[in-house]
């Protein structure tokens, strides 16, 4: 058991921004909210997955909606918590812990608050090991936790429980439609599972990874060392390119911020690179051939501060480093690649794992 205080919160939100691979939205508002909760006495207690009893009840948590809305209509403050309570009532159980939906953007922070409000710990794990755009992409569902029941709650006290859906994809669609009616943002509780299933399906210790990555980058900045070097060392990442953005081409459609990014600079694959993105960075190409693909993490950060740049803020002239990080093995199995591999995003490209640049940060629960 460890705790996230105001200083660790800075590291976790920076690290989660980097692991968000360009998506997940800006964690700023969620961070300020969490800081306020800490000032009001909240405690963010973090439980290692090995400390979770096999028969404990754990619930997935996070926000669903549009980042553009969540920076304008801020949370009432109990949406994720109420979704959790509604799901408890429906199941007739009490949850013993919360596990974040993803370790990217604001959804790495909101579950901490819901857990603190419920007086239970957050498990040091998540369902994506990065950010993905849709609910069916969490490892809980990929590895067989049923899509229902799930619950959502909004700012006006409206709550709903999904009692049956044939697939996680259908749950995603149904929830999304309801969120529109709720005004574009809502809190969600989903994938209620026993400790055994959590340990089998979750990506373990990713809050620790976010914290360590954030710490390393902040420490490097403080002592005027190279923060990109620090990022590489902390993630076992490999430097794909250091250079400059020379073109950002955006296409619209399907509720995604799609586009193509072109860079010039230097790196092991030559001086030019292209990255396709759909909210998150998905495929990086050099000389027309893919060199890194989803679900491996393709992180675009500023060269001077290793500050993550979300895809909606990419712009010509930015000096960036492109860091590739081999994803957690749980994302690279055939059943995971069917849902989060290049093909699931419409690319006719095979997943080719990145060579690690050093020891990877991921751990396994043997």
């Amino acid at each position: 058991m460890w705790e996230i205080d105001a200083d660790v919160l800075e590291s976790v939100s920076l690290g989660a921004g980097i692991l968000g691979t360009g998506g997940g939205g800006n964690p700023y508002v969620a961070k300020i909210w969490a800081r306020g909760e800490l000032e009001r006495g909240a405690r963010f207690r973090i439980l290692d997955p090995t400390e979770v009893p096999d028969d404990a009840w754990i619930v997935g948590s996070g926000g669903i909606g549009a980042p553009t809305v969540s920076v304008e209509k801020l949370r009432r403050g109990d949406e994720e918590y109420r979704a959790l309570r509604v799901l408890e009532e429906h199941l007739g159980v009490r949850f013993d812990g919360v596990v974040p939906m993803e370790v990217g953007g604001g959804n790495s922070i909101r579950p901490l608050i819901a857990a603190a409000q419920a007086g239970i710990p957050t498990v040091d794990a998540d369902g994506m090991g990065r950010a993905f755009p849709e609910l069916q992409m969490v490892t809980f569902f990929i590895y067989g936790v049923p899509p229902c029941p799930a619950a959502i709650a909004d700012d006006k006290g409206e709550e709903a429980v999904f009692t049956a859906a044939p697939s996680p994809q259908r749950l995603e669609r149904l929830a999304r439609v309801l969120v529109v009616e709720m005004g574009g943002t809502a809190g969600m509780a989903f994938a209620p599972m026993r400790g055994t299933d959590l340990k089998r399906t979750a990506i373990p210790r990713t809050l620790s990874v976010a914290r360590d990555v954030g710490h390393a980058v902040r420490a490097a900045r403080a002592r005027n060392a190279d923060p990109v070097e620090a990022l590489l060392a902390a993630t076992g990442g490999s430097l794909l390119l250091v250079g400059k953005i020379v073109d950002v081409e955006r296409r619209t459609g399907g509720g995604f911020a799609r586009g193509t990014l072109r860079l010039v600079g230097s790196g092991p694959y030559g001086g030019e690179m292209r990255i396709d993105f759909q909210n998150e960075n998905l495929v990086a190409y050099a000389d027309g051939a893919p060199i890194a693909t989803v679900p491996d993490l393709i992180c675009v950060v500023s060269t001077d501060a290793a500050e993550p740049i979300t895809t909606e803020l990419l712009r010509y002239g930015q000096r960036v480093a492109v860091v590739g990080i081999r994803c957690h093995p749980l994302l690279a199995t055939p059943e995971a690649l069917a849902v989060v591999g290049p093909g699931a995003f419409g690319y006719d490209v095979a997943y080719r794992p990145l060579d690690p640049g050093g020891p990877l940060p991921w751990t396994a629960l043997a």
Partner: protein
Amino acid sequence: MADVRVGVDVGGTNTDAVVMAGRRLLGWAKTPTTADVTGGILSGVREALARAETTPAAVRAVMIGTTHFTNAVVERRRLEPTAAVRLGLPATASVPPFADWPADLRDAIDGRGYLAHGGYEYDGREIAPLDEAELRDIARQIRRQGATALAICAVFSPIRADLEWRAAAILQEGLPDVRVSLSHEIGRLGLLERENACILNACLSGLAATTVTAIVAALHEMALDAAVYLSQNDGTLMSAEFARRYPVLTFASGPTNSMRGAAYLSGLRDAIVIDVGGTTADVGALVGGFPREASLAVEVGGVRTNFRMPDLLTLGLGGGSLVRPGVAGTPPTIGPDSVGYRLTDRAIVFGGHDLTATDVAVATGLAALGDPARLSPDQRALAPAAIAEVRRRLAEAIDQVKTSAAEVPVVLVGGGSILVDGALPGASTAIRPDHFEVANAIGAAIGQVSGEVDQVHSLDETSRDDLIARARDDAAARAVAAGADPDTVEVVDAEDVPLAYLPGSATRVHVKVVGALRAASGELQENLARSSPLATRNWSTDVGD
């Protein structure tokens, strides 16, 4: 003289004034800025009019750019006790107003936040109806608090503003003497950033009323019967009456004016502008005659805002920057420390003892100033490498700022721009136009009027083209209401971005238009379309900014 206008730029050190008739510069002056602002403006305008041989009565309009209000926030001086009322309950309670403010600034304005029901969803539905009794109770609390300024911010007010107006009317019944600022007039989507900007505006409202009233009164006393405008951060103008209520919109108008002035003086609408002052150099991109705006949050005095700010790269490099030899074969360093406005007594060529960037410019023959004989052989030997370092840093900045890989023209303005001459890497040409040292005051003088909308719509019922056309019409109506000539209104920025992660094709539409001031439309448009080099050449030794 059909259309004489006076442009004024009030900087931290100098107040510059120019007198213009149509596209002709008739005269200009540089005078020290005074603590009350008004004194410096008056002496500058008086001197510029005298040099222009123009009577005050001929002046139709005075345009003023000032950093006065930015400085008040940065220095935490002369700010009003301020209350902030947010309309958003039951949403938004998770992060109350003032959540991420520096404690000293919040204390300086005795800042207190209140949450009330109201606000809109992204599609214009009400989150909750306005609760009049709740607002009357908040008014009573604010009266007890003793606030003299009030900021009102409703969720999604850039899409629908009427709740802010209704809440203002109810609150003012109980607070008749309090100055009210409404967020939809100030910022765009992004609740915390817009609310912060609105609070900054409110806490400046007393100072603005006093300062703007004093400026207008003093100008009228000088027998200037002209309309008075202030420059906004996007390079367009607002009336003195509007500026009294929205002083925060003057933030960053200085760099914007200097870029607009550079566009005017060079005749270029798309270029990189480098404004070199005494301590810093600002590098920015002109797109269609206006500065490209920053897309990231901008901090002012430690407060996060989302103003329409020019996207600038600022280097610690100016005419007064100190020059030091490099260590172990590295190039000499320039800045970031500077002698600033004391250049004329501390630089070597002016009899001082500090080797400045201006000294090395003189040593290499870029400028003919002061007494070059005072430079030692060592200092002369260092100079070429120092100038090469200046060029290297500027070239790097140009490369970061430009919007495409193609070479672009570069316009050099500001007193410190004597440090560079000729071609710069990445630049197709480098122009230092005549009157480069008063580009900022010229930028103020040629200001236009803008209108802007930033809304979220559904594409289910309307086509994308119709949506953009409607936004364009709304923006044009706003510009005309602010004083633009309808015949000159043109779109300078239009973008639509679909909301990520939401079905139902909701799209955010942002359109901005500008037009010439109604009184003087024809000539202004002509000026922007094809400005020509001005008649007189006038070198100045002043590189203070």
